């Protein structure tokens, strides 16, 4: 398989347009991890993530013949993942949907606690695991659009420009939406201040707390 690593996306896309199905297979292999990763971070569920990934590549198959290469394939795929995610959520919400209780225990793989390690490191590791769990959980509580913004910008670390391309929105809109998403996320994390190394605010109840709401 590695011999194909030298073949650029453009060449593979051309081959696919000429009817070479193997080229499509290679493109899927090249991007499936990235696509799945984004899908997983949006859905926080391995099964849903695989569904989103599969649908994303189906859409790629259907529209690759029209792909003109004015965006990077990865950017374009991110866009499709977001669209598929929105579509799936819309479909879900049309059905009667009772939100599941958020699982608060045992959702992570068992932590390894090496005996030799210093306790500080163990604490650090455990803290980080807990932070990640809480973050992923809280992200799921954001409205879809805000969730996509946070995931793309803060986890996938895409630039404003690329996110604008991915979502097909003006840069200004991206910035303002990201701001709202961050504010919302920060509010949702208020009960977990200590987990993020910040002691509970001694000024709770004081007038300037209102400014948090922005």
């Amino acid at each position, binding site marked *: 398989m590695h011999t194909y690593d030298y073949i650029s996306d453009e060449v593979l896309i051309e081959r696919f347009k000429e*009817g070479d*199905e193997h080229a*499509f*297979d290679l493109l*899927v*292999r090249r991007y*499936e*991890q990235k696509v*799945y*990763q984004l899908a*997983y*971070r949006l859905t926080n569920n*391995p099964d849903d*993530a*695989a569904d989103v*990934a*599969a*649908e994303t*590549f*189906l859409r790629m*198959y*259907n529209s690759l013949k029209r792909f003109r290469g004015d965006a990077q394939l990865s950017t374009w795929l991110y866009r499709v993942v977001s669209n598929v995610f929105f579509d799936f959520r819309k479909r879900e919400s049309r059905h009667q949907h009772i939100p599941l209780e958020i699982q608060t225990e045992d959702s992570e793989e068992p932590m390894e606690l090496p005996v030799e390690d210093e306790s500080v490191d163990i604490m650090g590791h455990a803290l*980080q695991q807990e*932070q*990640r769990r809480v*973050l*992923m959980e809280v992200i799921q509580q954001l409205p879809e659009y805000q969730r996509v913004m*946070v995931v793309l910008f*803060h*986890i996938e*670390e895409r630039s404003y420009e690329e996110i604008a391309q991915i979502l097909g929105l003006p840069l200004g809109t991206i910035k303002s939406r990201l*701001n709202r998403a*961050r504010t919302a*996320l*920060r509010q949702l*994390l208020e009960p977990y*201040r200590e987990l*993020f*190394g*910040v*002691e509970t*605010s001694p*000024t709770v109840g004081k007038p*300037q707390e209102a*400014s*948090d709401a*922005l």
Partner: protein
Amino acid sequence: MRCEQVKEFLNAYIEGSVSEALRERIQAHLNACAECRREYRFLQSIWQGLSLMPEVVPPANLHERIMTHVRANVRAREAQQRVAFWRWAGAAAVAAGLFLMGFFVANSDGVQAAFGFGGAKKPVVESPQPVQAGVFIEYRETKDGSRLPVLEARMNREATAELHYVAGAEPSAKPTLIWQGTLLPGKTLEIPLQTLLQSANERVLTLWWSVEGRKRVLFVPVGYPPARIASVRLQAKLSDALRQLASVYQTPIEWVPNGEEPLVVLDAQEASLEEALRQLLVGSEYKLTRQGAAWRVSGH
């Protein structure tokens, strides 16, 4: 700066996207205000936690799952498009008073037939040697796994031939000429039948095929053979019975009439098409042979 203003700019400050002047003012405020300092640390810790998320490991069967989903959907959609297109093409042909024509054109390569519809890209191909003379229904596996029936005609000598399409269930109904021409030795005439199948609006297409005046009837099913046939009971004229069997078993049947058409009775339980046909033909003059993908019921 007031706390509200500072908080408004904290994310930009963390990102490093504020002007130098603003950065200094925020810095000064943070040095003086414990509350804003806490907020700053909180936000910084959140964004850092997000950026340090580990890579997600996909399930081992992800690739397979993706490819299965893609293949299944592409296949289904193409089948739908074919039906839609050929329905439309068939309707358009009828509306225009056209027949689904192919015509023979002699060129340096031998014989070529062109068709009014896009289904026939290579109507005539060089036959692999040696060939059996006759008319066959063959199925071509396409890339997406669907099977498309093709009528193939090969002769060892020059022969005039005609192909008619009979609309409706009755083989004696008025036929429509599809193709007429001369078959050349060593050449195979191929007529893709999906054009007709999709415009037929029936489970079985009835074709009349005549070579040098010898007539035979082809019953060509539209779909796929079912896995299992529970039971077939019928009492009908032979041609109707064969047509129904082609439909039930979704397998092409060729009928070479022998002048008379007997009334046949069939009561088959979990029978294969061959068993059903044999039962059907017991006591008649007709013989059963295999002809390519089709079964041939021949009175000769």
